[in-house]
């Protein structure tokens, strides 16, 4: 029995989110009286993998293969499912982000495992297994029982504090069996801004709303965000109007953020 956590990497590096997931998984593992195994897919150096151990992963499985260079939902979920079975995972923890939302449902069907998505706290109980998840777009929470042997939790970003432990983790190579012909996603083009602070990672966020009157008035907000070392965000009407890119839209239907400081300007 174990708690398995999938730790996504960004060009071979982990982020605060990765450590948050491991810290959370270790908390769940403590509740179940077991240990945490982390799975990393793609090329990540061992000294980077070791960092997962600091937050409580006891075993770190790395899976490097050309197949995983492209994010194909079937290949990734098949790999994680195979490892979950080998490791006899009772709980699988994944981020509730773009990649996690694509993988968790497939794992759920493969393993017939109930999913609690957008979970913000450790399980409320383990017998029965009940999680606290946001519902009605953050206007309420539901205590949801996951009634299957294997459970999947997608953790809401920025909802669990990092907990450092002194744990000497072992790093092992994992092997899985993936049918190459089933990998059908072909990447034609990638547009990526490098060096820009991602909104979901920012400790300080400066957000503007319709009260800013025009996209031409955004310069002071951008300057303020830059001065404070933060990121800019906007409300829904602003992204609907095309004043700001919709990646910046936060709130009910947009990105969920939890910065230390949130400055709202022109938002009612």
């Amino acid at each position, binding site marked *: 029995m174990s708690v398995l956590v999938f730790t996504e990497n*960004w060009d071979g590096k982990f982020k605060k989110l990765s450590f948050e997931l491991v810290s959370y998984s270790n908390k769940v593992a403590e509740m179940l009286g077991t240990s945490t195994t982390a799975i990393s897919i793609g090329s990540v150096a061992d000294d980077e993998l070791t960092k997962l151990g600091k937050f409580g992963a006891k075993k770190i499985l790395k899976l490097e293969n050309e197949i995983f260079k492209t*994010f*194909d*939902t*079937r290949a990734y979920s098949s790999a994680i499912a195979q490892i979950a079975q080998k490791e006899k995972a009772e709980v699988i923890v994944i981020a*509730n*982000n*773009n990649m996690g*939302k*694509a*993988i*968790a*449902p*497939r794992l*759920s*069907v*493969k393993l*017939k*495992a*109930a*999913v*609690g*998505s*957008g979970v913000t706290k450790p399980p409320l109980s383990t017998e029965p297994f009940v999680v606290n*998840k*946001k*519902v*009605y*777009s*953050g206007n*309420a*929470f*539901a*205590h*949801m*029982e*996951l*009634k299957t042997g294997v459970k999947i939790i*997608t953790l809401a970003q920025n909802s669990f504090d990092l907990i450092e432990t002194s744990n000497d983790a072992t790093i092992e190579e994992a092997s899985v069996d993936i049918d190459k012909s089933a990998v*059908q*996603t*072909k*990447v*034609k*083009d*990638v*547009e*990526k*801004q490098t060096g*820009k602070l991602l909104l979901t990672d920012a400790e*300080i966020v400066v957000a503007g709303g319709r009260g800013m009157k025009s996209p031409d008035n955004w310069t002071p907000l951008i300057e303020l965000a830059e001065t*404070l070392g933060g990121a800019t965000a906007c409300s829904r009407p602003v*992204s*609907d109007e095309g004043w700001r890119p*919709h*990646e910046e*839209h936060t709130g009910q*239907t947009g990105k969920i953020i939890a910065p*230390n*400081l949130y400055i709202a300007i022109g938002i009612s």
Partner: protein
Amino acid sequence: MKILVCISNVPDTTTKIKFTDNNTRFDSTGVQWVINPWDELALTRALELRDDTSNSVNKVTVGHVGTSAADPTIRKALAIGADDAIRINAEPEDAYQVAAQLAEVIKKEQFDIIFAGIESSDFNGSTVGSMIAEFLDYPSVSAVSGLNIDNDEPVITREIDGGKETVTIPTPCIAVVQKGIAIEPKIASMRGIMQARTKSIKVMEPVDVDIITEVVTFEPPQPKPDCVFIEEDNPGKLVELLQNEAKVI
């Protein structure tokens, strides 16, 4: 090509969320029900593709798991422009059950592209679309913010951290869509509303599926904490509070 758009019936997003029966049930008294906002955007894009003669999309069907109580919402989708609808006659219990029911229908009816909104505004599960894909062993792409068709092949834009990726997958496939897939939801015209009355809603009986999650209780929204106001001619005070009291800058 045929497109299926899976729609969920949700409380209007401005609804004040309340619960009854000792916080175990959503209080639907006086609630207006609407098409889930993400599904509405998916439907809009599907109709744009159908109406664009440069591709071979010629039919858009909406699929829903629910009782006849959801018929007004389905009629709305037909009024917006969907050609017909399929309703699987079962009370939606959880994402796994809903996805399994939709997958059964897709097996029978065969579609080339299946659209599902990335989440519903009530349960925020973000699971149904990709679960359908797994039940059917179809390829899928999630976080889709754009979809075009080139020589009967979907060319998809998906959101990744800090950017976008353009990918292709073969049909039949599932596109789990988010904001950006359409600029704004299409609104029903008077003609559309009239036409919707005669369009078909095919009712199909559900298959047996296990229910694997259960809401034990709801926690109603918490009251917001008190707010400190600072006079506009005293910005120094604000900086001081942020620095020394909140310790955030």
